């Protein structure tokens, strides 16, 4: 017979289409509506993989996200079988607490969605439904979130009545009304995993994952919602926790609420002969439902000496013996439970009287209930311990949020409906809508419970806590009362310390069930009067585990991060450029010809720039129009050198410092008109410099009449470099007088190119060669690049990339901000005293007089020539002064290599370095100890290694 433990009827199942699945290689059948766990139980399978550390046999223990044992691998590892929806062809393997990452790339589509709501209700049980209904009727944008495939919460597992009808008919009526209300969104199969600042909620929605493998590309597998809510209602329910007694981890020991859920929601008999153990009223429903389903209930063990009369009477009428003031003290069985040992409890929780043993294959346990305060706590709401409820409950809210129903310790159905309705109306009202709480329909079932008698630790029949190694506190971690005892004996008192020492609450389930129990056990072992004295650990998101694929969403592969390209990029790609990432930009690094490696290509490109002519796409430079009557005065304050006196049509190189005197950025600025400067920044700093200028203008000098406008992408810029660049430009701009006299170094001209494109041409040089930079509106960038190459064809014009640019500038000792500087380097350290004005104020000037900044032994930029002309020092290599310095630690470092290249012009390698007292060491040797064990010697030189007088540039 298939599914021998399936009840003949009932349950939220579609029995018309049985589905087949395998578990650990064996084939079974179940129904749509089952979870993997309920289907296994229907087939009589309760045992799952043994525990991780002690290999103890374990079984399905719950019916929800708090499951500590039934972990499985489907494709994804570490899923709780109690949360995996059954689908045809599902193949699951049990896991002993550790999964295996699938090595194949997960190509399923997960995405992200931003949402905004007036009211978000989390939890689709009676309280949440009532809240959502109240909010929705006001017209508020309402989102109802529930982690189950269908709404109803605990009502799915019971048989309460609302408004004189079965409660699930009320659920369906509410669902239908909400679905028909504009501005309401119902997210089922969606778990609120995070509650962040200002009501920012993260919600993980399972869109198609429950259907099994999907043909791609279908609607996504999962979606991570980022929802900003004006008001939040938490109707997250409560978790039932286990009890701590000897052998409490045995297969067949199960949450009493889960047993009821399996009976009523899934039509499954989890056992044939049951003992029920409880500290509270709730498990009476389980016992009665078990009896009604034909299960023999051997006893109902209630820790309370005087259970509520009505409940006790109902149990007796059902033929169930009630053992009051008692507890289970031990279990036995081969693997699955075969009997429970029961003893009477004294008022101080010690055992008294004889022990009775009852045969059973199911022990349904309710150790008490704890509101699911995880999201409340994530929102930084405070908790208090309610001595009557024996649970931590929400106290002071820290955000625009309220908890209702079981989430705040209200366990009766009428109370849940009333609180939900009122909270939904209140939330909508606070969000600015006219709302009234709808009348609460009368309900039957789930009455207001009597008080529980928590028993945090049921003593063993013998011995002391130090030896109670079968009393499991966190069964997933195999952590026991003995482990807690050892932590306390080691001196730990704080719950946070004991948690980390014992690992309680750190497993896959994050102690959802075990947490309150652990606090109780610790309070007992510490001799505290109440768990209130122990407190809770910190609740952190995510509430349930989520996959990295969900968190990544679409931001992977080509969409991982923005890729920025210039208007000339298509040409670079077509011509085989090798690109490098500069921030988000893709820049050509070099253009290899067939058979060339990078070194060969760069040497060729460098020779072209120094010997003939070469061209580079420099469009990525940051560009800012600084416009206004005070533009010159403003630039005088932000650059170390002067700009107010710059002639119109001329250009000047400048350095900006931060107030601490350290170099922040550099670049060339052209004065286009009295009140108009065209400022360029380094590629990586374009946005930061604009922000910097705005910051000073807005917050310190609002009286200055200056406006800054980013024009980085308005202009495409092509650098034409080399002794023959003038000839190329003459051809390209026939109407422009390009003679040395008419167009000198560091000036700018407006011209119309031969193809009709208007251009702003600057004679500036970052290579030390005669060079021009041609700026055109970026939509012309590609056309001008091609025109430059055409004009230079007869001269052998060579496109070059960032690597050649670096070599050319380094041969001239030009630093690159961010490569040769690192935020601790002054202009003087770079040997650029000449750029620091003496007779004006500018940002950072005062710092040059600080003792540390004025030290004589600061690291200075110098050149390095390795003694071996072929030796390329690695960038970042540390330097020492003396080859004997390596004999023992500490080794005193005197600097490091910042740039290092092979130079075609010099016919050798060279480097730039920041070296302590570097300017005083010129001519001396320094040594670089390399990771391969060699010590490489180099001679310190001036940083400018080529054409120190600038004759080539000025020619």
């Amino acid at each position, binding site marked *: 017979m298939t599914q021998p433990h399936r009840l003949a009827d009932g349950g939220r199942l579609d029995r018309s289409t049985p589905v087949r699945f395998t578990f650990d290689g064996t084939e079974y059948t179940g129904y749509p509506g089952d979870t993997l766990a309920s289907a296994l139980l229907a087939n009589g399978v309760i045992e799952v993989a043994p525990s991780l550390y002690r290999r103890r046999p374990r079984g399905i223990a719950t019916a929800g996200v708090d499951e500590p044992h039934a972990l499985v691998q489907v494709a994804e590892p570490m899923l709780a079988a109690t949360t995996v929806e059954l689908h045809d062809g599902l193949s699951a393997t049990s896991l002993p607490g550790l999964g295996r990452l699938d090595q194949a790339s997960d190509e399923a589509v997960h995405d992200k969605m931003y949402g905004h709501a007036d009211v978000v209700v989390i939890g689709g049980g009676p309280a949440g439904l009532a809240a959502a209904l109240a909010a929705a009727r006001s017209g508020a944008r309402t989102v109802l979130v529930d982690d189950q495939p269908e709404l109803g919460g605990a009502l799915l597992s019971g048989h309460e009545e609302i408004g004189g009808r079965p409660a699930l008919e009320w659920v369906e009526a509410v669902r239908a009304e909400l679905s028909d209300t504009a501005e309401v969104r119902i997210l089922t199969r969606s778990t609120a995993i995070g509650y962040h*600042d200002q009501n920012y909620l993260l919600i993980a929605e399972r869109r198609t994952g429950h259907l099994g493998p999907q043909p791609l590309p279908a609607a996504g597998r999962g979606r991570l919602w980022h929802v900003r809510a004006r008001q939040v209602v938490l109707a997250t329910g409560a978790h039932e926790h286990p009890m701590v007694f000897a052998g409490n981890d045995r297969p067949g020991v199960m949450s009493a609420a889960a047993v009821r859920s399996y009976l009523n929601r899934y039509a499954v008999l989890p056992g044939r002969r049951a003992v029920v153990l409880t500290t509270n009223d709730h498990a009476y429903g389980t016992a009665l439902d078990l009896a009604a389903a034909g299960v023999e209930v051997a006893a109902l063990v209630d820790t309370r000496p005087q259970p509520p009369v009505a409940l006790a009477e109902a149990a007796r009428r059902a033929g169930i013996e009630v053992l009051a003031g008692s507890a289970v003290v031990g279990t036995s069985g081969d693997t699955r439970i075969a009997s429970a040992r029961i003893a009477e409890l004294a008022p101080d929780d010690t055992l008294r009287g004889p022990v009775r043993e009852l045969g059973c294959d199911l022990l349904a346990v309710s150790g008490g209930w704890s509101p699911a305060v995880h999201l409340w706590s994530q929102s930084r709401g405070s908790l208090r311990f309610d001595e009557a409820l024996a649970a931590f409950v929400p106290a002071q809210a820290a955000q625009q949020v309220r908890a209702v129903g079981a989430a705040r310790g209200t366990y009766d159905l009428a109370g849940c409906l009333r609180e939900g309705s009122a909270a939904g109306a209140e939330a909508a009202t606070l969000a600015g809508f006219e709302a009234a709480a709808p009348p609460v329909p009368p309900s039957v079932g789930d009455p207001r419970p009597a008080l529980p008698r928590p028993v945090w630790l049921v003593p063993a029949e013998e011995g002391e806590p130090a030896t109670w190694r079968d009393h499991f506190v966190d069964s997933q971690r195999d952590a026991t009362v003995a482990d807690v005892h050892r932590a306390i004996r080691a001196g730990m008192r704080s719950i946070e310390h004991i948690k980390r020492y014992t690992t309680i609450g750190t497993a896959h389930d994050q102690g959802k069930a075990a947490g309150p129990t652990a606090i109780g056990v610790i309070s007992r072992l510490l001799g505290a009067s109440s768990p209130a004295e122990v407190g809770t650990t910190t609740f952190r998101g995510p509430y349930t585990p989520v996959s990295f694929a969900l968190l990544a969403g679409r931001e992977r592969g080509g969409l991982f991060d923005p890729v920025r390209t210039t208007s000339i990029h298509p040409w670079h790609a077509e011509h085989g450029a090798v690109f490098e990432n500069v921030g988000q930009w893709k820049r050509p690094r070099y253009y290899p010809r067939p058979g060339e490696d990078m070194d060969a290509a760069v040497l060729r490109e460098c020779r072209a720039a120094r010997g003939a002519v070469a061209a580079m796409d420099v469009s990525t430079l940051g560009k800012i129009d600084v416009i206004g009557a005070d533009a010159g005065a403003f630039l005088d304050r932000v650059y170390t050198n002067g700009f107010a006196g710059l002639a119109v049509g001329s250009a000047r190189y400048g350095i900006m410092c931060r107030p601490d005197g350290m170099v922040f950025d550099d670049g060339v600025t052209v004065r286009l008109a009295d009140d108009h400067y065209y400022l360029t920044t380094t590629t990586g700093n374009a946005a930061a410099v604009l922000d910097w200028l705005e*910051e000073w203008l807005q*917050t310190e000098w609002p009286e200055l009449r200056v406006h800054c406008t980013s024009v980085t992408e308005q202009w495409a810029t092509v650098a034409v470099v080399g002794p023959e660049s003038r000839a190329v430009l003459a051809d390209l701009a026939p109407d422009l007088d390009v003679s040395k006299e008419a167009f000198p170094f560091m000036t700018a001209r407006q011209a119309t190119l031969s193809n009709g494109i208007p251009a702003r041409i600057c004679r500036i040089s970052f290579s030390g060669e005669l060079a021009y930079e041609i700026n055109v509106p970026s939509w012309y960038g590609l056309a001008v690049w091609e025109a430059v190459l055409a004009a230079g064809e007869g001269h052998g014009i060579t496109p070059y990339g960032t690597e050649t640019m670096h070599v050319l500038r380094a041969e001239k000792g030009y630093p690159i901000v961010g490569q040769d500087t690192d935020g601790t380097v002054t202009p003087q350290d770079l040997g650029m005293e000449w750029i620091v004005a003496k007779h004006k104020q500018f940002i950072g000037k005062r710092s040059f007089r600080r003792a540390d900044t004025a030290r004589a032994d600061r690291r200075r930029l110098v050149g390095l020539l390795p003694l071996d002309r072929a030796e390329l020092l690695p960038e970042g290599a540390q330097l020492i002064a003396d080859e004997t310095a390596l004999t023992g630690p500490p080794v005193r470092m005197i600097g490091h290599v910042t740039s290092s290249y092979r130079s075609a012009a010099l016919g050798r390698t060279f480097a730039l370095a920041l070296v302590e007292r570097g300017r005083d060491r010129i001519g001396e040797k320094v040594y670089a100890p390399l990771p391969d064990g060699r010590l490489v010697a180099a001679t310190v030189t001036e940083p400018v290694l080529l054409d120190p007088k600038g004759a080539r540039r000025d020619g």
Partner: protein
Amino acid sequence: MLLIACPWCGERDEVEFHYGGQAHVAYPSDPEALSDAEWAQYLFVRDNPKGPFAERWSHAAGCRRWFNVVRHTVTHEILAVHPAGRPKPVIA
């Protein structure tokens, strides 16, 4: 993710903003007149209160205006927002 009310654009997510550190630390009008200790105080020393803190933000991805925020450094509650140049509001 903080929700910050730009005085101009209204409520936007924190990712649209740049943080600018403590507010109301004016650039000294005459840095040269300051001792090294006074200048170092300006450069390096800022308050780090547990509680309300007046700080600067810039709506970098929006209107690019700088403004001041009073934020509780424990709860992240934003207690006040006002444009640059206005005096610090009194937070009870």
